[in-house]
């Protein structure tokens, strides 16, 4: 039978009740914890008051009962499906004065049309009248009454223990309540009864929550950044400092980790928009995901690699010889953002030059196929994130010259002999990378949203007016320097 025809109604909740009975011994100690389990406590309290304590540390006690009302003070169960047996509980009075005191037990059927509470009309199941006199009565009574056969029908019910009385101030205590049956409430759905949910692809994620409802191997999208794109900006003269316009290579990116019902990554969809090349060098771009073994990747598609590339690649599409997952989106930025001509050297950095259209490059890194990961194991969603995202510029077709974000380590293919030379103050042994001597300035920036880049040869601080004070205050001031707020930018310097 075709999947499109077969709509399997699968229970998306693991309906393993941990017992065939519902119990309340008050030992959670707080009303709120029982309410979270879908018990309803109206003018009753879980506490350790000595006068109404029946067993162990806590019992449940009513308010001071002063009128014969079934709605003033009660304890109501979650929805349950009855099983055979009896409802049992212990009860006592607190010894205070009172006219009469009773517990009236009702069952309440589920009514589909009542979208507010789901409760139908209550019916009295059992009544217990405390013997007279109520005054000074502190005896513990064991109550037991059978579940009527007509209620053992697979339908959900609530049971309400209503505390009533007139005269005096005597309270009723109850404890060790046991009902035969299975728990049927859903605390994640306003405590309505658990019900079968549509799950067309059978991955145990209900269709209404499944972002791929007809794909058993995919369930959710997980983007970083969470919305829009982030921007990477590079200077390419490392280890020398350049003009600090941070537009030698400007790339917007976002990454979608598509996960399955186990929260394992099926594929990472990397979208890149190479927006500007303020350089004459034929720079490439690399992305390492640190601490993810290359063998966990099944395939890579969507990269732009020249015919005679300086890079070598493994069978799965990753760069060969690297310690961690390393992909090369392109080995020459001009291949993805061609020069439009017109007499200027860079692309999209000179306001008098021709604009070049920016395209979206989509790279797919596959970790699972048909529900199966590589023999090296799956990658969990939290193993691939911004913390181990390590992008780098490869300078002018020199594979060993990598330019990373400040503090990010080079790949094992980088030439470490360059560290500490000219303006660079990297210290491999101290795990300090890509910051300048004396001033500690970086050669790359990573901004959490898409940021317009600088015009050619315009110093970054002349366009982003809060950037400098953010830096020299060590981040305590203007930490939102990248936002487009009044007096935050000089647009005459920005492309």
């Amino acid at each position: 039978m075709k999947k499109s025809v077969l709509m399997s109604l699968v229970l998306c909740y693991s309906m393993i009740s941990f017992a065939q009975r519902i119990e309340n011994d008050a030992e959670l100690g707080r009303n709120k914890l029982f309410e979270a389990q879908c018990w309803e406590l109206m003018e009753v309290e879980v506490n350790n008051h000595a006068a109404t304590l029946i067993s162990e540390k806590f019992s449940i006690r009513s308010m001071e009962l002063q009128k014969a009302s079934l709605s003033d003070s009660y304890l109501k169960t979650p929805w349950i499906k009855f099983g055979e047996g009896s409802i049992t509980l212990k009860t006592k009075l607190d010894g205070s004065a009172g006219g009469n005191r009773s517990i009236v037990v009702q069952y309440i059927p589920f009514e589909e049309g009542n979208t507010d509470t789901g409760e139908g009309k209550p019916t009295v199941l059992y009544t217990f009248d405390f013997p007279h006199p109520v005054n000074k009565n502190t005896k513990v009574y064991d109550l037991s009454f059978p579940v009527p056969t007509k209620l053992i029908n697979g339908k959900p019910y609530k049971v309400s223990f209503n505390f009533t009385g007139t005269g005096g101030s005597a309270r009723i205590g109850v404890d060790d309540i046991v009902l035969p049956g299975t728990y049927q409430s859903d605390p994640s759905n306003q405590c309505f009864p658990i019900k079968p949910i549509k799950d067309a692809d059978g991955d145990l994620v209900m269709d209404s929550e499944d972002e791929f409802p007809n794909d058993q191997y995919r369930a959710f999208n997980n983007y970083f950044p969470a919305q829009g794109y982030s921007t990477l900006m590079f200077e390419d003269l490392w280890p020398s400092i350049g003009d600090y316009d941070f537009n030698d290579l400007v790339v917007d990116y976002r990454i979608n980790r598509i996960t399955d019902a186990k929260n394992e990554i099926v594929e990472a969809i990397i979208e890149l928009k190479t927006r500007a090349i303020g350089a004459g060098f034929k720079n490439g771009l690399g992305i390492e995901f640190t601490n993810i073994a290359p063998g966990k990747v099944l395939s890579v598609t969507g990269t732009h690699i020249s015919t005679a590339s300086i890079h070598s690649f493994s069978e799965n599409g990753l760069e060969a010889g690297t310690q961690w997952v390393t992909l090369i989106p392109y080995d020459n930025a001009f291949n993805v953002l061609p020069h439009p001509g017109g007499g200027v050297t860079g692309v999209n950095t000179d306001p008098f030059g021709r604009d070049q259209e920016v395209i979206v490059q989509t790279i797919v890194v596959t970790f699972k196929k048909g529900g199966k990961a590589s023999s090296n194991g799956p990658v969990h969603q939290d193993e691939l994130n911004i913390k181990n995202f390590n992008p780098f510029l490869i300078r002018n077709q020199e594979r060993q010259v990598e330019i990373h974000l400040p503090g990010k380590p080079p790949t094992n293919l980088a030439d470490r002999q360059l560290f500490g030379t000219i303006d660079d103050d990297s210290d491999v042994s101290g795990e300090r990378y890509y910051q300048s001597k004396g001033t500690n300035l970086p050669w790359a920036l990573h901004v959490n949203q898409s940021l317009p880049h600088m015009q050619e040869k315009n110093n970054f601080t002349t366009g982003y007016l809060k950037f400098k004070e953010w830096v020299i205050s060590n981040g305590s001031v203007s930490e939102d320097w990248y936002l487009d707020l009044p007096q935050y930018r000089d647009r005459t310097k920005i492309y």
Partner: protein
Amino acid sequence: MYNKKIWASLLMVICLSSCSPKDMENPGDSNLNNEMQADPNFSWSTTRQVTIEIKGLQLPVSISRKLILSTEEDAVFYTGTQLMNEDFNYAVELPNHIRSVSMQFGTIEKTQDLTENKISFDYLPADQDIGSVK
């Protein structure tokens, strides 16, 4: 003839200059060194690490649903299946300007402000006036 020589020379100069790749700038073009100095430990990051905890709920059944975490800008940064009776711990980098996080689990929705880069949630119902005992 003379013009041809001039054109040939010009052509040679153009060819020679385009044969050797060079960047559009030169080392030291920036005067930034004189203007700005960062602390050696400055992170340069426009995000910071936030830890999110959700305390699991003791339940007589096992319920697994989609958990969604988002910022005050409605930007969803986490989606995954979560068992309601298990604790959830997650470290994430959020933009510096973000001040609160929301969680959604079925019909349970809560929002908390960040306190020292940490947020704790639970599945307990919000405080209500009814139920307190007179």
